[in-house]
């Protein structure tokens, strides 16, 4: 796909998703250009932030700590430069196409290697396509990153409806299953007859739904937040009870970690977003600091040190790129609605809730040790009838592609090796 004339978009594009009876199936080039006035307004609001008093504890157990957040927000309003991110995004081929009434934004980078395997990579909350930028090079150009030409991927990285530059659905129904159907249509429009799917966080239920729906051409999945909790473990956790009998040491350790996770209130944001996305939305939409703190409430940031650890990803700029994207596209509320849409289906890590037994395609799993839980292989084998690959790596967390791009790319190469069609 060639990048045609730049499609320069203003804020209008974000607020006017296209609806039509006979859907325009065209794929339009897209470039990001946020009006200067929006950036000025953001800086003005940051400078005018009204702060609460300091937390009453010496750690982050009450939420983002005042001094840390103030430092981050101060930098956001002074040193941080969104235009650099815009340039990074615009250096990649980006497109918009309308699917099921909603504009879908995506990055699409073809490898120069023939026979590259196409992969559609799906972000989650509070993420965006920003999470995936660092893996594009290693995946599409493996020979420059320690891989071979035979390991190349074409990458398709869409923004979930309600997120980033995709349209914000005005009606209900955009749950992971519907997003999955849109992704299958997207891959079809791009002409991929064979491809694989990858995801963590919401990317897991979305990719898994594509597999359950037997999307045409889908060969298999790689997921990094698998839904492996067996029913008896899910039930014991819900009841706050003791571990079910018969767990191995490793399984018991995971059970206890999840119990602690719940007791520490790590999933409170999940409950609130599922129940009242609109209520949360007002403050996060009107206050940059409020948005930043709400993004950082995600347990994936529980070890993040505001970029202070040299050499550790994501950097301060990475995280601000992502938060600024939410701000400028005004998607704090629309993104939160994905939780509401998931609603009664419940936990994204429970095997029954996610109907993993209905997935007959090969499923590859990489467990990153600092993710919200470390799925044991035994549970993964029970949950996924066709587990093709399981590997627990020694570093990385919830935002694996963002935190450990090279390792993440290496995992995708290994995970999909057996699925590459023979040419």
């Amino acid at each position, binding site marked *: 796909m060639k990048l045609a004339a730049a499609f320069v978009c203003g804020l209008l594009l974000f607020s006017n998703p296209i609806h039509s009876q006979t859907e325009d199936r065209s794929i339009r080039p897209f470039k990001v250009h946020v009006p200067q006035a929006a950036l000025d307004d953001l800086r003005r609001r940051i400078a005018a932030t009204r702060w609460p*008093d300091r937390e*009453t504890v010496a750690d982050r157990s009450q939420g*983002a700590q005042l001094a840390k957040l103030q430092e981050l927000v101060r930098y956001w309003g002074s040193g941080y430069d969104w235009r650099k991110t815009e340039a990074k995004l615009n250096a990649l081929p980006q497109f918009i196409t309308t699917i099921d009434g909603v504009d879908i934004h995506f990055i699409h980078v073809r490898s120069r290697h023939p026979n590259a395997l196409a992969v559609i990579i799906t972000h989650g909350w509070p993420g965006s396509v920003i999470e995936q930028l660092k893996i594009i090079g290693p995946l599409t150009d493996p020979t420059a990153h320690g891989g071979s030409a035979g390991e190349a991927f074409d990458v398709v990285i869409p923004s979930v409806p309600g997120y980033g530059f995709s349209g914000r659905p*005005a009606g209900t129904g955009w749950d992971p299953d519907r997003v999955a159907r849109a992704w299958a249509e997207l891959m079809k429009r791009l002409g991929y007859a064979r491809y694989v799917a990858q995801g963590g966080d919401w990317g897991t239920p979305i990719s898994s739904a594509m597999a359950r729906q037997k999307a045409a051409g889908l060969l298999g999945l790689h997921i990094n937040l698998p839904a492996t909790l067996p029913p008896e473990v899910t039930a014991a956790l819900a009841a706050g009870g003791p571990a079910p009998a018969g767990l191995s040491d490793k399984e018991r350790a995971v059970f206890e970690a999840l119990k602690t996770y719940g007791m520490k209130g790590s999933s409170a944001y999940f409950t609130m977003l599922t129940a009242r996305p609109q209520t949360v939305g*007002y403050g996060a939409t*009107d206050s*940059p600091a409020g948005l930043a*703190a709400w993004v950082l409430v995600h347990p994936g940031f529980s070890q993040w040190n505001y970029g202070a650890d040299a050499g550790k990803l994501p950097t301060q700029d990475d995280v601000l790129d992502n938060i600024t994207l939410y701000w400028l596209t005004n998607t704090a*509320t629309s993104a939160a609605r994905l939780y*509401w849409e998931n609603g009664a289906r419940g936990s994204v890590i429970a095997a029954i809730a996610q109907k993993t037994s209905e997935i007959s395609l090969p499923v590859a799993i990489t467990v990153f040790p600092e993710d919200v839980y470390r799925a044991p292989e035994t549970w993964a084998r029970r949950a996924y009838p066709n587990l093709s690959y399981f590997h627990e790596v020694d570093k990385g967390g919830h935002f694996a592609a963002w935190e450990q791009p090279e390792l993440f790319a290496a995992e995708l190469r290994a995970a999909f090796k057996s699925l590459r069609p023979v040419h």
Partner: protein
Amino acid sequence: MTEAMTETRTEGAPQAGSGTADIRPFRVNFPEADLAELRRRIKATKWPERETVADASQGVQLATTRALADYWATGYDWRKCEAKLNAVPNFMTEIDGLDIHFIHVRSRHENALPMIVTHGWPGSIIEQLKIIDPLTNPTAHGGSASDAFHLVIPSLPGYGFSGKPTAPGWNPVSIAKAWATLMQRLGYTKYVAQGGDWGNAISELMALQEPPGLLGIHTNMAATVPPDVSKALAVGGPPPAGLSPDEKHAWDQLDDFYKNGLGYALEMNNRPQTLYGIVDSPVGLAAWMIDHDIRSYQMIARAFEGKPEGLTQNDVLDNVTLYWLTNTAISSARLYWDTRHNLPAGGFFDVRGVKIPVAVSAFAEEIYQAPKRWAEKAYPKLIRYNKLDKGTHFAAWEQPELFVSEMRASFRSFRA
């Protein structure tokens, strides 16, 4: 209360942290600049798009917040509320190192019964303003001299004009002790306590602590849920067998609340400091505060649709503006965190084992309407139980006349 607040927002208040049992007069007077800044922020609100449903199932609806913001920025007058507050005697006293603000109105009737009334979240002393005159001056409000109360209405630590704790430890147990100290400091040797929401938890804790002079309590949000029901609710049902129709109704209300309404409390239980957005955004604060429970939300939403019943637009905005001007959105939310982290686990509505006399008013649209049989089991000395056919979560604020008659009837037996 911070030094800055003491200087700019009060008149004649001595320095905080004096470590004495002094009781200092207090008046409210926010600088005009604070009010102008609030209006500026409301007008500059950046809005999300409309919810994708036709009801309140995703939270506070855009049309409601828009109407609220329009009126708040243009029609609403905080100075009227300030005048109402300053028309009653306000005081400040330091207890356990923290400034406690309270309204104290003595009845002119000598044998009036002293009562300490405690608000909850997202409430404040604003909730209680309408009941002051009827309770302290009953003969002007259809009562007799023997119905009179002396009223003490404190602001919880971290709320309104009270100080903001800078360390953990202020929870219903310590607040209950502080309230006993306050009543003792005011010279009351025999008194009663009243509350709903956190005010119920604190009144019940006082009842458990049995400070000298506490004769009994009245609650409009009784904690009566039996252990088997509480257990079943925690796992999402099914209800235990043998519930009466009233009990089944209470179960349905609680089950709905636990499944759909508990998000705000979980958030504040665990990550109050994350709520920077409601400190920086007036509309964010208002939306967060009016989404307490579905029935009171619907009542408030109707007020902004021009159909007030119970609370008016001004009532709601007086309270939200108080939170805004005192910058207490997060300090108030920390009461949830402190309770969750420093007290033994236990549901908010679970039986606590109060042994002293208790009177219960069960308003129809409270989070749950406590059934009589549960109340009898929860409180062995239940002196009065009354089920009311209206009223949501904010009984004193919404239904002041009913509330006042409930107080008179509930405590009649304690009067000399």
